[in-house]
């Protein structure tokens, strides 16, 4: 039953495009040329990581000492058989760079997810409840920040031993603070907004308010920090591997390739430069995507 008809001023054309929906975000993202390029690089990297056994021309660990330190194809002495040359043990550089993407992206994504999950929960609880919970959690965050993350990672990996999952765990457990701080401050400003009071007024429980009303509203800054953290974790993994404390030797990583290559920089630059370029491109592409995502995913940007 209709009680009354609202004035014509009440009418807004139905079916106007909805804010925050995926297609709108994607369209806005595609308008940014640099972001499109970065996204393309990322898709390529992801494909390389996923389908490494199919794409890579050689087993990344198969050695051929007779073909050691061959230069890339376009230099004198190079051949099409090894487009990016070979390393000091005669392993194919192209195959190793492709396989290296696997560890880098896995560690990057894994660490960002883990840190994001911890940091988001801490930030939500801290910002929503305030009081002693907030004080305890934020002092923990301060303690965490006072520790140089890489040094802590070094100590833990050195103690527990190296391994892919240890690296992910360590980088995840050291990276949660920035998520927690940003989520906390967002939640603190959201908490006093009327729609949270309104949700409480209709009897919604705290846990549901956090999950259904607060979490979606902090997703935009979260996504941005997460992308930047992926890039940081990729570099951190490379640093650990470079120091020999990352993943075991037989797993190919850009960091350990860099470490191997530096011995031959004077004579065979390609051994260090190609993993370096891969690392830099990955980190750059993720950062650019993250920046573009921040500009685009902010619902405030669409407000009419």
């Amino acid at each position: 039953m209709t009680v009354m008809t609202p004035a014509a001023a009440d009418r807004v054309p139905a079916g106007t495009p909805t804010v925050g929906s995926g297609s709108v975000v994607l369209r806005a993202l595609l308008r940014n040329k640099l972001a499109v390029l970065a996204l393309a690089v990322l898709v390529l990297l992801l494909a390389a990581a996923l389908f490494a056994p199919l794409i890579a021309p050689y087993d990344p660990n198969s050695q051929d000492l007779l073909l050691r330190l061959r230069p890339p194809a376009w230099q004198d002495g190079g051949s099409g058989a090894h487009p990016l040359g070979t390393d000091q043990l005669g392993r194919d550089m192209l195959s190793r760079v492709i396989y290296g993407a696997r560890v880098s992206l896995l560690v990057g994504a894994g660490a960002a997810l883990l840190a994001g999950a911890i940091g988001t929960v801490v930030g939500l609880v801290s910002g929503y409840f305030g009081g002693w919970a907030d004080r305890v959690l934020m002092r923990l965050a301060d303690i965490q920040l006072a520790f140089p993350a890489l040094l802590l990672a070094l100590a833990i990996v050195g103690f527990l031993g190296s391994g892919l999952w240890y690296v992910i765990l360590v980088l995840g457990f050291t990276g949660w603070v920035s998520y927690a701080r940003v989520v906390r401050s967002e939640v603190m400003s959201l908490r006093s907004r009327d729609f949270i009071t309104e949700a409480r007024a209709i009897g919604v429980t705290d846990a549901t308010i956090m999950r259904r009303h607060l979490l979606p509203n902090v997703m935009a800054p979260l996504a941005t920090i997460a992308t930047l953290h992926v890039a940081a974790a990729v570099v951190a993994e490379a640093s650990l591997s470079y120091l020999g404390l990352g993943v075991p030797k037989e797993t190919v990583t850009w960091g350990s390739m860099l470490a191997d290559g530096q011995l031959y920089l004077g004579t065979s630059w390609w051994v260090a430069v190609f993993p370096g370029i891969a690392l830099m491109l990955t980190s750059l592409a993720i950062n650019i995507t993250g920046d573009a995502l921040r500009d685009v995913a902010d619902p405030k940007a669409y407000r009419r």
Partner: protein
Amino acid sequence: MTMDRQTRDHSPHPVDAEPLLQIKHLSVDFRLPTSVVHAVQDVSLAVHAGETLAVVGESGSGKSATALSVLGLNPTPPCVYTGGEILFDGHDLLKLSEKELGRIRGRDIAMVFQDPMTSLDPLQHVGAQVAEVLGHHTGMSRAEAREAALAALDEVGIPDPAQRYRQYPHELSGGLRQRVMIATALVGRPRVLIADEPTTALDVTVQRQILDLLVTLQHKHDMAVVLITHDLAVVAETADRVAVMNKGEVVESGDVLDVFDRPADDYTRRLLAVTPRLEAA
């Protein structure tokens, strides 16, 4: 407590009837880092089923703090309840746990807030926000809650509810949003509705519609309404009884006609003197 839910006519109530919601000697402080604000001091109010109680006063007079106290929604800290009781259904609401209050909020006592622009979650379909009340309070399935929410949107006069259900708050005008808020408040079939300046943020033509809607729905569902406002014209048109608040205290309360005709308190007299008189009142 047995409820007298028979249909009443919109006239003064027998004095002996048990009030549905009764605030007795409520005092609320806000303890700020540098000072203590006595927001509500020894306030007593009562409202019966089917009746509208208007609480009038200027900004900072303690109207909203009193209203939010009923559902325990004042931010604590800094808010501290220093005395009094709020009786509903034989319980003192101030003594209930957060969990027990959660069962009353939205189902027995509902609220409509002042600003419909900020009271809806910007990232959720408005229909889902209406249905959320039901999902929380009843064992309804998703489909049932959706049906009930659609019916509630229809009841508050939202055209094409099925279409509106899937829209976001920013796609609706202020008047439509306030209708959504009212639907959210009413879908749980509360016995008491607290409307905290429900029309202040709306423009004049829409204000009128929203007030008419509230009155119509009140009669239909025999609700007690606590209407918080600073607009005496609104009080004259809609309320049965009125309580005038100033600086955290109730300075005068009684039947609307009595208070308007024979204001006993000096503040009420001054308030009435500065109100443009309605010929029809």
